[in-house]
């Protein structure tokens, strides 16, 4: 039964000791530099600014969309009211006697839009 250690030294990344030590130093130096960067005021502000800006953009989008929609609803309502007033004024000017169904239709539409 073969249960002794297999010689895997051919795969040993630390065979080139100088290169390996340089790699270790480089990783540690980068980690320290990143950590220092994270502790700077600018980075802290930036890390706070990003979520705050994202939240602000969401709020503006939601309320902006709502305002736009309500504005267009108001425009439609105003247009209908104007049309009703125009029809009524036209009847009055021309001294017309509209049928009851016509009156109900015009005023009924107005009631619906209220």
């Amino acid at each position, binding site marked *: 039964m073969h*249960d*002794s250690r297999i010689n*895997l030294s051919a*795969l040993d990344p630390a065979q080139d000791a100088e290169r390996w030590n340089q790699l270790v130093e480089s990783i540690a130096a980068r980690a320290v530099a990143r950590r220092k960067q994270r*502790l700077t005021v600018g980075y802290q502000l930036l890390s706070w600014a990003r979520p705050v800006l994202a939240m602000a953009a969401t709020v503006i989008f939601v309320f902006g969309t709502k305002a736009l929609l309500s504005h267009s609803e108001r425009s439609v309502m105003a247009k209908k009211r104007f049309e009703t007033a125009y029809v009524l004024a036209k009847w009055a000017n021309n001294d017309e006697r509209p049928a009851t169904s016509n009156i109900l239709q015009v005023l009924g539409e107005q009631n619906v839009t209220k």
Partner: protein
Amino acid sequence: MLAKNVTATLVIRALRGDPDSFTKLVQAHLRAAYSVALAILGRPADAEDIAQDSFLIAFERLDTCREPERFAGWLLQIVRNQARNALVSRRLRDVPAQENSEELSSTSPMPDSSTFRSQLLAALNVLSPVRREVLLLHDLEGWTHLEIANALELSELMSRQHLFLARRELRERLDYKVSEVDHA
């Protein structure tokens, strides 16, 4: 591998920004990180990149390491995740480099196939990832079964079994070309 209390002290000092502690933690764990990455990726160059990236990620998230004495296991989990992501990206890219495909395939024509390293990598690729991890951590990195069991969240018995089967498979694959050394 460092003693648990030494590791915990280094982690705590690193959290305070002590540069020497970073260096010592990298020195103590880089080979293990490389071994785990190599077990998943099968390519030494990729494994080295992933080991480096994993350290940088680990140090950025060091304050989330709840058990500093178990830094090794925590780090190796990051390595494993990074290596698996890299493997998925590599499969999606599906552009194997000439050099790398040699390392992975034992049947492809290999101009470098005479080298023992290439044979070893090709043979390792036949093993399951967990067996590769156990084999590399034990026979390359020199970890004990207890250390492997803690880091890989296995039982010691499973670690021994994986190692036994991995060695047997590797020897069969290499046709006993691998030189053997006695137990340390």
